[in-house]
């Protein structure tokens, strides 16, 4: 190929990629447009721009927020996600360090049980787990944090352990000679070295817990709504559904994710690639 042809080929490729990117963004834009249209103009002609006649301003947003208690749902989602992720990162890092360094039989068995839990689909335990959570009084936003720790432990301990093994034990031995007890050692020496992995694990768990529907629905769904439960509630439930409110709520639930993505995009892409071991 001559230089000119190469340049032309590149330009064609670029245009093609722009087209593909537009196709990828289009569904979200369609939802955004429809969130400003009257609820009866959505189902029939979703691809038409709002006109003077169909435009309703923020009516749908007001309706969607009022019907589902969106701000409350946002609060619950935020509380559950932040607390669970914090608890998971802290406790699974401690566990991973312990079971990697203490090479006892119970530690090894516990490790294999955790790895095993990664391959068990949620449907296998959903009924018994939600009943047990109910019996133990864990059916509230604080209780579900505890459940998420148990459920997220498999992947997180597995990933942390891989990195603990890469830390030379000499560093810890030196710290011990300097008089560190295990708790000081963990917080002052080990955890700082695990920080990149901790970021990865925090991101993977954030994406999972923020978007999770079935687990919170079964455990706390009849008393507390998270965002995915609020969206589903608007859809099902009663009589004819309000398409306008649904569109508004879809937009409201996508916005936090996009903000999160654009602020820590680099970490997210790296973390997701690192978490690819999850089956």
């Amino acid at each position, binding site marked *: 190929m001559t230089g000119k042809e190469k340049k032309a080929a590149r330009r064609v490729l670029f245009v093609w990629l722009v087209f593909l990117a537009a196709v990828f963004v289009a569904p979200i834009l369609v939802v955004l447009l429809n969130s400003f249209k009257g609820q009866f103009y959505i189902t029939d*002609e979703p691809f038409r721009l709002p006109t003077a006649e169909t435009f309703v301003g923020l009516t749908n947003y007001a309706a969607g927020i009022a019907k589902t208690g969106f701000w409350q749902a946002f609060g619950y989602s935020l509380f559950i996600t932040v607390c669970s992720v914090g608890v998971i990162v802290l406790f699974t890092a401690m*566990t991973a360090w*312990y079971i990697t360094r203490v090479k006892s039989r119970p530690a090894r068995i516990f490790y294999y049980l955790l790895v095993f839990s990664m391959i068990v689909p949620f449907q*296998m335990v959903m009924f018994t787990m939600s009943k047990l959570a109910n019996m133990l009084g864990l059916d509230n936003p604080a209780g579900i944090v505890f459940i998420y720790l148990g459920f997220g432990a498999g992947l997180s301990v597995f990933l942390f352990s891989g990195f603990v093994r890469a830390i030379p034990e000499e560093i810890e031995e030196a710290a011990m000679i300097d008089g560190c007890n295990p708790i000081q050692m963990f917080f002052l020496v080990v955890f700082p070295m695990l920080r990149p992995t901790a970021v990865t694990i925090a991101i993977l768990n954030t994406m999972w817990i923020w978007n999770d529907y*079935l687990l919170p629905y079964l455990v706390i769904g009849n008393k507390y709504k998270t965002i995915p439960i609020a969206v589903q509630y608007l859809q099902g439930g009663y009589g004819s559904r309000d398409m306008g409110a649904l569109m508004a709520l879809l937009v409201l639930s996508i916005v936090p994710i996009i903000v999160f993505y654009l602020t820590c995009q680099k970490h997210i892409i790296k973390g997701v690639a690192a978490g690819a071991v999850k089956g």
Partner: protein
Amino acid sequence: MQKTLRRYAAVFVLPTAVAFTVAFLIPFLMGIYLSFTEFTTVTNAKWVGFSNYLRVFRDSSDFTNAFWFTAKFTVVSVVLVNLFAFSLAMLLTRGIRGTNVFRTVFFMPNLIGGIVLGYIWQLIINGVLSWFMVDITFSASYGFWGLVILMNWQLTGYMMIIYIAAIQNIPSDLLEAAAIDGASPRQVLRNVILPMVMPAVTICTFLTLTNSFKLFDQNFALTGGAPGRETAMLALDIYNTFYGRVGYEGMGQSKAVLFFIMVAAIAYLQLRATRDREVENA
């Protein structure tokens, strides 16, 4: 150090161990036990042996239908998602202007939750189908292809990221040597790039495989199994068996055990495939 650390087991292991036991271990063991019993709440179980398992196949064809629907869906999405993802990765490793922006855009749908994804695509697909005066619940094949489109939209960017990393890891002297030998782009792709990214192909294949096989939220929101139960995948069928009506909990639990065995079999295949590759490379 091991000795001192051991005395701190309560601090380091106990919180995780208790949570794991309550959230996973006990429910898992109870789940296996209950699949052999009849029960409505977990406390009134009556042993019935294998009869729940027999009923799964004798009482109705729901589970078998769901299995075939899931299997077909999984095969189609694994092939399409990986084809698209690999092609995108090839396009985005040529140093074209704006590569990072494109990567960001293609990956974004992966972060949106399954329920929200389902309703986004319900709007789009029903909008297109309304030109033909039907909607997605009109025929099972609409639901099938709707799910395939959704899955491609969600997963292509994710797999693309893994393929990009693999392609960028190919040593440049290998590509240069191929160019000096006068290899055509097609030959380079077949004889250099593809063999070098095979580990990524294995990872991506199994990732799409398990993700498609275990799909629930998207299926629940997009079609809810309609028309009838024709587009219900395995996870949704289990959910419906548990919560759709009273008196089928035992059957639901035995379906769940069967589902677990299938997922475990896939995981076992994955483990073997990755191990074989490690041996090859060693």
